[in-house]
């Protein structure tokens, strides 16, 4: 994974894992790698991977079974909420970039509709 080195890395990994939960790569109740394996998988410092799990747990994206490891949340409503939040974020980034180019929201919508990839 390529990181933006000016932004906290733990948050970038948190978002990558949440995206995997939202798009179904990781399923409800799936076991997540240990902190050490996560560090290897994402080439991050072990302290950063510990922080990734703290943050995911605080947000309700995963939970820890004592002595067993960390698992993806089984709360489907929560996953739906993440999906909405992340879509909202992606959309506002898109609209902001279009605005910077002087393209209005209506024009943006028209451009999206007539885009060959849609």
């Amino acid at each position, binding site marked *: 994974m390529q990181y933006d080195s000016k932004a906290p890395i733990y948050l970038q990994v948190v978002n990558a894992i949440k995206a995997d939960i939202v798009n179904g790569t990781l399923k409800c109740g799936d076991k997540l790698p240990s902190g050490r394996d996560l*560090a290897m998988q994402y*080439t991050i*410092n072990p302290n950063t991977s510990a922080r990734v799990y703290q943050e995911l747990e605080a947000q309700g994206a995963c939970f820890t079974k004592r002595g067993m490891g960390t698992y993806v949340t089984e709360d489907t409503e929560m996953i739906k909420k993440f999906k909405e939040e992340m879509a909202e974020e992606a959309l506002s980034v898109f609209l902001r970039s279009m605005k910077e180019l002087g393209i209005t929201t209506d024009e943006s919508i028209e451009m999206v509709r007539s885009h060959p990839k849609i």
Partner: protein
Amino acid sequence: MLESIEVTKKFVGKTAVDSATFTLEPGHIYALLGPNGSGKTTWMKMVTGLIKPTSGYIMYDSKPIGIQSRKEIAYMATEPYFYDWMTIKDVGKYYEDFFEDFSLSRFNELISRMELSEKLKTKNLSSGMSAKLKVAVTMARNAKIYLLDEPLNGIDLIARDDVMKTMLESASPENILVISSHLVEELESVVDRAIFIKDSHFAGLFDLEELRQSEGMSIADKYREIFGHGGQINA
């Protein structure tokens, strides 16, 4: 805890390390950063006990560095240090004889993952293979402190990934890893703290995530701030 207290090393006509005071804690991977000739290698050699400070002290867990601490410190020098006639297998045996904490099975695991054949002679290795071998043999020790001097020098992207993975695997809450490099960007995600050495002086110790979170700065940005033209020492 590893403490560098007012550590100074003078060579004839040159002060290589000048009154360096800072503390390293277990459970962290440190980058030791500074341009060539800033004193990084000299500091590492003093911690290893290969050379003695002119003045000042280096303490590990409140005890001065000495014969005992050498057993617990694994040092990897920049320059190649294997005999030409040695095969990779010989290098493993050599280390096994030297260090109580060396694990031959761990070494074999590392060299096979790095795709190094144990029959190869060290004199025939490419610079990338040689760099991987040095890291493998150093990290196959079960040390309390690992000091790696420029482990990423002159190696390709794939070899770099292997080296990073090996370092991450060996990191634990009980040990300290110190990696010197001038390839600052390569270390961004792997190290969590950075020590800057400028013109033989200590020039700051930073927590990388803290720097990103509170100042929106990468470690490369900090490097430019400290060493760039007009950069001041904030010691």
